[in-house]
């Protein structure tokens, strides 16, 4: 970056003394609200075609699936609102399901991204929305002023416009939208704590399915995909292509002001820090790269076998909320074995991918 007076020396670099280690409780009250909203939507006259939920795959682990047999919505129910530059939710509704495109590009990107995310989960895994039960998808754009973030608050996706100096608007990359909604899926299934290795797994699962949303929308094979997270999110002033790279963690950006992408691709580079809930956005590089290695070894479309194995892992009941990388790795191998068999090349590829990033599947 070449902006004026900015230099890394402008601020004093402080080693953070600590961040209180906090343990997430699995029973988030937000989810009770979300579950209630889902039930309410099912009680209303459903404008969608209702179809039977597909039978589970005979070899699929189905212990903790949240998809109930019976009618589930097979198309999204989207509502996009605008916060019009303040930090207040939900804001004013600007586009409902089926409405014509808005003149506001952020509104349309959010609407389309929610649709792309719904599509991946439904078409690839027969999951109807975040909860498997057609939960309406709500988003708010233009949150705050110069707000450099996007998040899922348990009820809705929230997007900032970025500061225009470092970040563009956060709706610009569809994988960001898939990432945020996947936090909802993770919460509904494995409920991983957002701290330490469990938190990095939580982050990685969002990057994995966020990337698969983008790959599915573009119908790209594992070999064709960029495996970048947040491509286009940086302004032209930043020396970097994206926020993260699953293909080559640590290489997404290297900027005079921002510094270098800090993600490790191997356990030997695991970062101990008290920032960011234990570096959840940094250490996610390790499981991200394992998924990339598995998907490219399996080859073809990543959402098919590799994605199915990761999805089965979320539903399989083998992942505790405090899972370490090794425990999660073992659960992916178990899920691959359950679906494809112990001797299938996909199962070997998954096992090999974890070992290649320095994670030995536990047990």
């Amino acid at each position: 970056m070449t902006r004026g007076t900015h230099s890394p020396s402008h601020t004093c670099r402080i080693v953070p003394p600590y961040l209180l280690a906090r343990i997430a409780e699995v029973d988030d009250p937000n989810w009770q609200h979300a579950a209630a909203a889902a039930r309410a939507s099912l009680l209303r006259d459903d404008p969608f075609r209702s179809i039977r939920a597909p039978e589970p795959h005979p070899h699929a682990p189905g212990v903790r699936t949240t998809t109930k047999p019976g009618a589930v919505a097979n198309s999204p129910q989207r509502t996009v609102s605008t916060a019009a530059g303040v930090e207040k939710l939900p804001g004013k509704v600007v586009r409902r399901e089926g409405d014509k495109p808005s003149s506001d590009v952020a509104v349309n990107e959010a609407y389309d991204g929610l649709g792309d995310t719904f599509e991946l989960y439904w078409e690839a895994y027969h999951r109807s929305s975040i909860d498997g039960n057609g939960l309406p998808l709500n988003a708010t754009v233009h949150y705050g002023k110069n707000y450099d973030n996007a998040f899922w608050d348990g009820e809705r996706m929230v997007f900032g416009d970025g500061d225009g100096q470092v970040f563009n608007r956060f709706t610009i990359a569809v994988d960001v939208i898939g990432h945020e909604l996947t936090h909802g899926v993770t919460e509904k299934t494995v409920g991983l704590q957002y701290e330490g290795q469990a938190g990095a797994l939580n982050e990685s699962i969002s990057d994995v399915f966020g990337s698969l949303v983008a790959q599915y929308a573009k119908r790209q094979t594992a070999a064709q995909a960029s495996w970048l997270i947040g491509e286009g999110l940086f302004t032209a002033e930043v020396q970097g292509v994206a926020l993260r790279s699953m293909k080559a963690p640590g290489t997404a950006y290297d900027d005079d002001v921002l510094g270098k992408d800090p993600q490790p691709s191997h356990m030997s580079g695991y970062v101990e820090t008290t920032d960011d809930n234990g570096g959840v956005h940094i250490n996610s590089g390790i499981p991200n790269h394992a998924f990339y290695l598995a998907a490219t070894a399996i080859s073809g479309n990543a959402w098919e076998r590799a994605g199915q194995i990761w999805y089965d892992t979320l539903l399989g009941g083998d992942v505790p909320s405090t899972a370490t990388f090794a425990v999660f790795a073992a659960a992916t191998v178990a899920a691959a074995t359950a679906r494809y068999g112990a001797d299938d090349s996909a199962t070997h590829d998954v096992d090999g991918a974890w070992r290649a990033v320095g994670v030995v599947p536990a047990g």
Partner: protein
Amino acid sequence: MKVVVTRSGGFAGMRVTWQVVIDNLPDASDWVVLLRELPWDEVADEEPQPDRFVYRIRLEPLADAEPPQAEREATLAEKQLTGPWRELVDKVQDADTPADPPAKPHPSHQHK
């Protein structure tokens, strides 16, 4: 007294720091009142929310201050950044603006 605000987390997982030494500012007494009124010991533990920011707010005493200044620190989830806490963070961000200011938050991003 130096006031240091560090923001970590967020989707990007980048750390940003803003800081200001208040002692010689024309409105130093306003700062002192605000800092004294902050509920430093009443910040509840908040469970982490995915991709939300985490704010660490720290008072660093100056070595040669007379009388000696107290060191204080609080860690707040983004949701907890309301009222006087928000006022303080806004003030620090405004005060820590370089000569050629871009929009805040200015990009003194850093890691670790």
